[in-house]
């Protein structure tokens, strides 16, 4: 076992990698070693991993059905045997609802981070690379989207599209791509006139190849950092939409919706709103810490050339 692990770690430290895969893994391993030195980032990573595990194993971990009502057990306080986080006004176990709610949160976050940054990256790199009127048109469109407060624009979109989880995701994605376009464009402008881009152009590469293969890898770290830092914002916007009744619809156990339901008896039965609030707080904090740690690892300016 120790033999195997030591040969693995020398393989991962090999200065002369034998293949593309090994070369990439060596770099990833070095980044991981750098990341591991930051305890706060490790806490962020732990919270994020816990969220993923929670949502995967929710059916196994949850003691009760998150939707089934038990009106005899209404508003039990935390610490009641069998309901350590208490129950809500329909007698549903809050812990079970938070566990299943993590699935919805993760689903929204994943859909948003798979769409918005991609759109932003494409628009930003194209605008930055070509410059001129293409840049003007794309960036003015970006400015228009940036001129609206995020939640208000999302509200308007949901009002048009109708409430629901998919529409909430769509609204959040449509409102959150502009900052990525800005970041990607700024990064592209610094890279565009460098010698290595001139070299590949001189080899006859077309714009598509230069943007995808040479410009985007340089923009990716900044965008990834921005994404992890924005994940908290996405969760909060989703929760905000749920709170306002325009996102996920009852009886789904979405955290924002749960806070909204608990608002009615916040002073007498504080736990109904507080528990999902704590969940949102912890997960947002986790993503922010993770983003901070990733910045230290991924930022091309800090990791040397």
């Amino acid at each position, binding site marked *: 076992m120790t033999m195997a692990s030591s040969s693995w770690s020398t393989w991962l430290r090999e*200065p002369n990698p034998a293949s*593309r895969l090994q*070369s990439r893994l060596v770099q990833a391993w070095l980044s991981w070693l750098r990341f591991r030195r930051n305890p706060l980032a490790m806490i962020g990573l732990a919270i994020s991993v816990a969220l993923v595990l929670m949502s995967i194993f929710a059916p196994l971990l949850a003691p009760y059905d998150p939707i089934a009502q038990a009106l005899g057990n209404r508003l039990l306080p935390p610490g009641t045997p069998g309901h350590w986080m208490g129950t809500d006004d329909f007698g549903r176990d809050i812990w079970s609802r938070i566990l299943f709610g993590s699935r919805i949160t993760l689903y929204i976050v994943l859909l948003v981070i798979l769409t918005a940054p991609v759109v932003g990256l494409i628009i930003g790199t194209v605008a930055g690379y070509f410059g001129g009127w293409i840049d003007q048109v794309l960036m003015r469109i970006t400015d228009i989207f940036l001129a609206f407060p995020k939640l208000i624009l999302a509200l308007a979109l949901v009002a048009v599209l109708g409430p629901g989880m998919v529409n909430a995701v769509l609204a959040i994605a449509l409102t959150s791509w502009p900052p990525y376009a800005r970041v990607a464009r700024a990064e592209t402008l610094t890279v565009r006139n460098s010698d290595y881009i001139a*070299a590949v152009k001189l*080899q006859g590469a077309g714009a598509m190849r230069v943007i995808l293969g040479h410009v985007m890898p340089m923009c990716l770290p900044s965008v990834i950092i921005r994404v992890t830092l924005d994940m908290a914002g996405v969760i909060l916007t989703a929760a905000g939409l749920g709170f306002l009744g325009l996102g996920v619809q009852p009886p789904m156990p979405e955290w924002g919706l749960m806070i909204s339901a608990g608002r009615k008896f916040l002073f007498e039965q504080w736990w109904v709103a507080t528990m999902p609030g704590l969940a949102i707080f912890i997960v947002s904090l986790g993503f922010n810490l993770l983003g901070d740690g990733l910045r230290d690892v991924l930022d091309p300016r800090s990791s040397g050339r």
Partner: protein
Amino acid sequence: MGDVMALIEIENLSVTFNANGRRVRAVEAVSLKVGEKASFGLVGESGSGKSTILRAICGLAPVSAGRIRIGGEAVQSPRGKAFSAQVQMVFQDPYASLHPRHTVDRTLSEPLAIHGIGDRDARVMTALTDVGLPTSFRFRYPHQLSGGQRQRVAIARALMLKPQILLLDEPTSALDASVQAEVLNLLMRLREERGLTFLMVSHDLAVIDHMCDRVLVMQNGRAVEELSRTALASAQMQTDYARSLFAASADRMLEG
């Protein structure tokens, strides 16, 4: 020399940059001819427009007047793949000319991929050996290489498409003195083996003297004087500027 068909012909080339509405004339009415398999040097202090001429040939600087001909044919704009296969450039700073997130392998395979050339593994290995790098460096990133090694990779990249002409933009000025000589000797060897034509920029007359058959001295974007190697060696300059430039690096030239 002038009667032989010239591979690179530049006639009255002017390059004007537009910097915040102000027109900056970087090169003014410069003409030169480089014969096949010749090695031509451009010298001058920084800002004299010598690098701009190389960039103009590659289509990286805006040509405001004049003609550039390669092998008797006027260059196309944009330059296109045929041009890439004929003319390549080695940049001054090896720390800036290699993509920081591409391995040596990716950097060297890219030109082959662009031009749809197969058998990439073997070609990359040969290219590394040709520039005196061990093949075990193939999957390293630029930050795992020294300056001299990076410049060797940049030279290998420029030669991947087997061009006839190599434009060298101060290829050694960012390197240590000991490494400079190695890289210059490598370039000399490659030129001999492959019959390359060099158009080389330097501010260092000693380097030019070592490498080039003919020299064009430039000042403030204009051509001052063209010298043959023998004229350079025997210090037969016509203009004061060329003489002062020569005096500044004469000591080191005599050593070499």
